[in-house]
């Protein structure tokens, strides 16, 4: 090997590079040794369904809080793995590369493919679309969807973005017409999102016109 060739990092979250299986010990881990567990979607559905049965309306808050904690921890791990792999702070990473890495991190964990729309950022809102969400459990807990049916994923996004930004944020589902193939969420300050929930989402989904007027 040419010992003067300095390695150039590629894709930290490339599946075959990131996920390491050790059948002899029964362990699944990241490239840095952090444990992974393959979670079948039936587990998430069972948790959501059980909470719904046992706690009724309180399940929405419980799922949101669960998702928030999960998202925070996922965000922390993703940041740490990115820093280790690219050997530089996040702030020194090109924004476009970071956004692509986010997508790769979600994909390798089977969470789907997120894309972030910054067009409303000046109004304090991010619009996040998730394709093939691995967290969606709307159908499990509600026959008729509302924004609260997707509390687990909303909480996950809130926790994740809170970790990335260092600010306490809130998220809610804004358009679930094509769930689970594609879902849209809005992320922003707690007061802003709660206002949107009260004034718009109690009635129904956010159309593009309503979204642009927020």
């Amino acid at each position, binding site marked *: 090997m*040419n010992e003067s*060739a300095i390695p150039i990092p590629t*894709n930290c979250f*490339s599946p*075959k590079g990131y996920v390491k299986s050790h059948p002899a010990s029964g362990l699944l881990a990241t490239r840095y040794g952090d444990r992974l567990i393959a979670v079948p979607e039936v587990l998430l559905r069972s948790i959501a369904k059980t909470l719904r049965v046992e706690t009724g309306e309180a399940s929405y808050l419980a799922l949101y809080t669960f998702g928030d904690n999960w998202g925070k921890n996922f965000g922390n791990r993703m940041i740490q793995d990115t820093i280790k792999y690219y050997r530089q702070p996040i702030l020194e990473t090109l924004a*476009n590369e970071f956004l*692509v890495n986010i*997508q790769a991190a979600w994909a390798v964990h089977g969470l789907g493919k997120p894309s972030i729309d910054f067009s409303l950022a000046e109004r304090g809102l991010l619009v996040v679309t998730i394709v093939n969400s691995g967290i969606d459990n709307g159908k499990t807990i509600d026959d008729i969807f509302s924004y609260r049916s997707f509390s687990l994923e909303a909480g996950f996004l809130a926790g994740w973005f809170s970790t990335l930004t260092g600010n306490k944020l809130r998220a809610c589902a804004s358009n679930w017409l094509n769930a689970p193939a594609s879902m849209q969420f809005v992320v922003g300050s707690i007061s802003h999102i709660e206002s949107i929930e009260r004034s718009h989402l109690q009635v129904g989904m956010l159309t593009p016109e309503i979204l642009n007027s927020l």
Partner: protein
Amino acid sequence: MITLLETLVDGADGAYASKQDLRNLEHAMSSWSERKAAYLAVEANEKSIIDRARRSMENDKLFHENNRLNPAMLECCCRDMTLTLRSYALGMLLQDEEMLKDRFIYWHKNILQSMDLAKYQGSKFVYDSICIELPREQSKLFKPYFKIDSEITASPELN
């Protein structure tokens, strides 16, 4: 070859490798010496290959039109072309298109798209440079892999 070996292992699960898989493996291994030589040649000539590719990029009309000439962007492109060279060299060495796509091309394409660089021709500059810096019997080994890139990233087709 990684993909080929994985296919062979999956197919042989609890049984024996199929005759077709064994023939495919034998075929892949038959060109190992030539591929290894080409791979080592790329490694040894990386600097001259990238320098030539850089000059081609700096002289390219499209590059000028997009006003990408600032030093930081140039360095970024050179880093990208070096990464491209190394990734394609590995794909060629292991004769594995699927590995190349999974480990590099799709990720690379997503970054170029996110930076609105659909017309970026870094891969073409690298391939053209390989064709000049390496003997023809070695450079031709890279052609199928750069062709994949052009198909996936919608770069101009290679001749």
